[in-house]
């Protein structure tokens, strides 16, 4: 019996003497809880309401009243913008306050929603809106006219979760292939002395690196083709994008993550060192770059900071192209973001990469 206890004690000593153990068993779960705590999952039950205020100051009071309704997640925008978002499913309802609107005046309001695809949301939203308006009317002065809200059906593209998810997963697999593939691959080569054996030959280190990069890029492009193919053929992916643009974004993203992978390979001596560092980089991005769920539910500050993540640029870019059919110019922000990250990651990789 004593030996069981001694072995347990010895195992615990060995476990906690690894620095990574402290990091991963204690700090990391805490980090995950904090990160996910930021995401307002409660927001998933609310109605995403876009408001188009064409009445200017006259519509302000109504607008603030609508904002105060907790069921509504309100965003304000132009008609074109909000209707586009409605088409994509980012809004459940879009309320238009026409330019002639005044409190208690004759002008009615129109709310647009996809009644077929989201019957509950549209009907509920319409009812709540009407109630708010009625309350406003009663609170003002008796006899004030009741403003009517008419809900008009709007055919959205009926995008489903797969349309959101697949581009996100695509970007995730590019990241994993770049970071983990290179980092683990090179660290193993380094540790086993395979790279050393190469170093006594006349080959230039760059030759080897270029070969590895080329190989991984080819594999990544194959991955992308397979995933999009399977998505379209079997999963009802609403793919309307330009495949060449998809590949371009994929390659730009791959370069960024390959650079990270080389940097990690440079500073790590063994696989045990690589894994925690790789996870430290990838997991926050997986959580907050809009891979698994939309970033609209993130609080403002977190959302702004995470919008600069390379994975965010990649996921947004792929999604825009694949699902919204975005053009080259329309994803220019994402392309530029990825290019800048690419330069940064390559510079860092060149600095940090070591053969031994």
């Amino acid at each position, binding site marked *: 019996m004593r030996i069981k206890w001694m072995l347990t004690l010895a195992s615990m000593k060995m476990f906690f003497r690894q620095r990574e153990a402290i990091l991963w068993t204690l700090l990391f779960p805490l980090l995950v809880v904090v990160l996910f705590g930021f995401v307002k999952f409660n927001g998933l039950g609310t109605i995403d309401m876009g408001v188009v205020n064409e009445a200017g100051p006259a519509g302000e009071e109504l607008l603030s009243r609508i904002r105060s309704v907790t069921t509504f997640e309100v965003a304000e925008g132009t008609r074109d913008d909000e209707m586009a978002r409605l088409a994509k499913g980012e809004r459940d309802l879009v309320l238009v306050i026409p330019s002639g609107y005044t409190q208690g005046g004759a002008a009615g309001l129109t709310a647009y929603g996809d009644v077929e695809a989201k019957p509950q949301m549209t009907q509920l939203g319409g009812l709540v809106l009407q109630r708010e308006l009625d309350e406003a009317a009663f609170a003002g002065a008796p006899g004030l006219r009741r403003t009517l809200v008419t809900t008009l059906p709007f055919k959205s593209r009926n995008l489903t979760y797969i349309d959101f998810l697949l581009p996100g997963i695509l970007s995730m697999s590019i990241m994993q292939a770049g970071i983990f593939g290179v980092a683990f691959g090179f660290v193993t080569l380094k540790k086993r002395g395979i790279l*050393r*054996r190469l170093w*006594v030959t*006349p080959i230039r280190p760059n030759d080897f690196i270029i070969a590895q990069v080329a190989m991984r890029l080819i594999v990544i492009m194959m991955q992308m083709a397979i995933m999009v193919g399977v998505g379209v053929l079997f999963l009802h992916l609403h793919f309307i994008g330009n495949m060449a643009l998809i590949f371009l974004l994929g390659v730009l993203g791959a370069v960024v993550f390959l650079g990270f992978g080389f940097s990690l390979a440079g500073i790590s001596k063994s696989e045990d060192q690589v894994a925690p560092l790789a996870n430290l980089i990838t997991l926050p991005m997986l959580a907050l770059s809009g891979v698994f769920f939309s970033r609209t539910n993130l609080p403002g500050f977190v959302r702004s900071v995470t919008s600069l993540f390379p994975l965010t640029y990649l996921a947004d870019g792929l999604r825009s192209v694949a699902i919204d059919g975005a053009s080259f110019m329309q994803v220019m922000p994402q392309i530029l973001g990825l290019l800048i990250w690419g330069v940064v990651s390559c510079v860092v990789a060149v600095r940090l990469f070591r053969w031994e």
Partner: protein
Amino acid sequence: MTEYGEIVLQVDDLVKRYGGVAAVDGVSFSVRAREIFGILGPNGAGKTTTLECIETLRTVDAGKILLGGLDVRTQAHEVKRIIGVQLQSSSFFDKLSLAELLVLFGEMYGRRVDPLTLLDEVELRDRARSQVAQLSGGQKQRFSIAAALVNDPVVIFLDEPTTGLDPQARRHLWGVIKRIRSEGKTIVITTHYMDEAEELCDRVAIMDAGKIIAMAPPHEMIDALVAGGFRKEKVERLASLEDVFLSLTGHTIRDE
């Protein structure tokens, strides 16, 4: 008696420090063409570091190394072309066959090699399609020598080539090394096996604590020791246990 040629490797006052400690502390020697030159010494003596400095794997803190007329410190790239190296702790790509590896290494020197001819040199032709991980210890060592010959080098460096091998494999490797030398190559070998140094080396440098403390042909050193009055303590036996072993198990090498 082998005809030695001109000096192909000249090392003058080589110094390599790690932190404050000099792993190689002012080492000088020269090696002539077709010599088998041995560097002997206990572990930590600086043999491997010395070799790595000459092989361009380590930067040098002080001293001069001339190999085939090239300055190793400034012309490393050219030096890599004319040397062959068998590293003590290194390995080859996992999923490539021996033949594929030799062809690939040949390409690194811009050469088209015939892998089977090279494998013949080390008697591994029948394993051309195997991967390195599938070989026994002795076969791995033989393969790394084949890989070191890919570019028909001027000088070959072998770092403890028979460490960990059984008696048959050791003897067999000695035969391979002698044959390579007879084909015109110069060989620099480190070892801590005395019998190996006696058997193979034309001249030996004994290193300890980063310095060369003696350098001469083995038989001269032995003669000098005996002339100084040294006598072995025990009565010399007519045979050793190794002789028993070999007579019982034979000289043919055992590969799995």
